[in-house]
């Protein structure tokens, strides 16, 4: 049991899995010699050699396409796209190939692979380095889409993703890469894909979030408790697809009220699906409209204004109070 930050926790997952399974291969831009621009793959090339942890030419479709071939062959590629904003170069490969080869071949060939990518805002970055577009992948049948919220969930979800027999998109909330440390068990703990976690129990309102939004959400729950005497239940989705509506529907059946929080643009974003599942599963329990606290329907601004775009505890508290006021 060690206290690790998220970069170290992901690195640990990769290292342990590469140690125990020689079909696990790690590659992408700058992931080999340099250990990745965020140092997530640091030391892997030294330990496992250039055949298993290597740098590729600068071509995202190339990386993903080659990984698909390797997966079909029988390996377990875990590739990195340097920033999620550049993954669209490989959209066709992911939508038309990774997601479909099992289906197309009726199970004869499969694509057990993981595509890791840092996503979301909060690091004062240049354009294209701060977007959250998990909804693209969640709307793509054949893919799974997971997002950890800290070191322990990152390690546990990544292990599950690597062992998953199907392609998994693994978004890493880059703003919390080194933001805090958590105890991460030495033995390879896994966290199942498709299961949300209740981070805080509460009876008054349900706050549904994931990724870097978990911290402001918890903060909001604390404020609500302290200032309003309101006990919020906080749910960490962890998987965007499959989406664990059982978890949040059950919670809302108890609380009657919900706020869903994400950095992605509001319209057609992940929150819309959460709302729709709640309408389907918990409509008769709803005592107020479900609120969405989300990124705006704009391009996330450069860093001088970024904080006005990103949902913070204040916006969450405000939405919760409004929801509670009716």
């Amino acid at each position, binding site marked *: 049991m060690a206290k690790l930050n998220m970069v170290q926790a992901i690195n640990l997952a990769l290292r342990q899995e590469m140690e125990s399974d020689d079909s696990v*291969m790690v590659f992408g831009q700058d992931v080999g010699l340099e250990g990745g621009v965020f140092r997530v793959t640091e030391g892997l090339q030294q330990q496992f050699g250039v*055949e*298993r942890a290597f740098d*590729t*030419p600068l*071509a995202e*479709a*190339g990386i*993903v*396409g*080659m*990984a*698909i*071939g*390797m*997966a*079909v*062959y*029988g*390996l377990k*590629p875990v590739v990195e796209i340097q920033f999620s904003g550049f993954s669209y170069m490989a959209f*066709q*490969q992911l939508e*038309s*190939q990774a997601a479909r*080869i*099992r*289906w*197309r*071949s*009726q*199970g*004869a*060939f*499969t694509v057990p692979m993981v595509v890791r990518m840092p996503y979301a805002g909060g690091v004062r970055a240049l354009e294209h380095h701060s977007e959250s577009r998990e909804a693209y992948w969640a709307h793509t*049948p*054949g893919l*799974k889409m997971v997002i950890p919220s800290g070191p322990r969930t990152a390690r546990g979800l990544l292990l599950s993703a690597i062992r*998953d*027999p*199907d392609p998994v998109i693994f978004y890493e909330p880059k703003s919390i890469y080194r933001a805090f440390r958590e105890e991460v068990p030495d033995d390879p703990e896994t966290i199942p894909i*498709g299961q949300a976690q209740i981070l805080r129990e509460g009876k008054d309102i349900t706050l549904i979030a994931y990724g870097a939004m978990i911290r402001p959400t918890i903060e909001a729950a604390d404020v609500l408790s302290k200032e309003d005497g309101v006990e919020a239940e906080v749910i960490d989705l962890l998987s965007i*697809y*499959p*989406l664990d*509506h*059982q978890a949040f529907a059950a919670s809302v059946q108890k609380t009657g009220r919900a706020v869903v929080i994400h950095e992605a643009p509001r319209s057609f974003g992940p929150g819309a699906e959460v709302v729709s*599942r709640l309408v389907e599963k918990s409509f008769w329990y709803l005592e107020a409209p479900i609120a969405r606290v989300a990124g705006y329907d704009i391009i996330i601004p450069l860093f001088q204004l970024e904080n006005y775009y990103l949902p913070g505890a204040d916006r969450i508290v405000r939405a919760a109070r409004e929801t509670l006021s009716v």
Partner: protein
Amino acid sequence: MPRRKIDLPYTIEYLSILDEDGNVDTDLEPDLPDDLLLALYRAMVLGRRLDERMLRLQRQGRLGTFPPISGQEASQLGAVAPLRESDWLVPAFREFAAEIYRGRPIESFLLLYGGYPQGGYAPPEQKNLPLTIPVATQLLHAVGISYGIKYRGQDDVAMVFFGDGATSEGEFYEALNFAGVFQTPTVFVCQNNQWAISLPRKKQTRAETLAQKAIAAGIPGIQVDGNDLLAVYVASREAIERARAGDGPTLIEAVTYRLSVHTTADDPTRYRTEEEVAEWEARDPIVRFQGYLLDKGLVTEERIQELGDEVEAEIREAVERIEQQAEELVKDPLIMFDHLYAEMPPYVQEQREQLARELQEKEASRG
């Protein structure tokens, strides 16, 4: 120092062995066993006849849209002939003659183009991937497969097919470049059939040959008469040997012609002349190879006739088998939920159950 030509170690060659008039360049002629020559001949005939048969089935509404292969028999069979069973084949969508030669049943194509999900199944031990429709997206898969082969220390290769049109997609180039960098045992076979739907080869790129595109990735490229089975065979064998020996990938441009429609939804009279087609009909790869076998005394006119009949019978039986089984295969529409993931996500299960209920109700209200 001033202005100088950079010496680059490339020559793009053109290879032809059995010419249009049936002359063989005996220096280059490969020494192939008779049974292989005959098997390849039979596979060519099977490809052509199946094409014709599927076209009729499609016109009768018994098959959906499909892309015929007529004219491209030599280019695809010559390429796969030197492969071993343990080698991998990554097709585009116009290689069924080659796929059948490699073991895929005729039925599988009848199912696929008949709209049955089962048509996508490809026995994994045959190492023929299912066909790929988004142009050029399959090339990188072959690079990945061959990376795996190399990593596991095997001496197999991966061969991937694509058309002249595919060479315009960026992924074509990315695949060549990755294969070059990682020196993977990959054989890239471009069936340049002169057309990408209505776009002629010369409007696809200003490059004089497609083979020269290899230079961009620093790998060998060769252009070959794609209607000459012997030439394609030799070029392919060379590339395969290079790959097995650890000397990396090769790009082969097989110059051939699509004699038929692009797909059954296409009307080529809109974009090409009958004269052009006639010119290429005169270069028919089957006729040419048949002449070679006749000259070698490996077949007689009679045997040719017989073999055609055998092949027809084989196709007829496959069609009959499929038409008997097909309905059964889609009797349960719920199979459309299968095979997307190893494990069906709960919400998809719910959707499936909902549809099951609806179907039952319908059934009940009908019965």
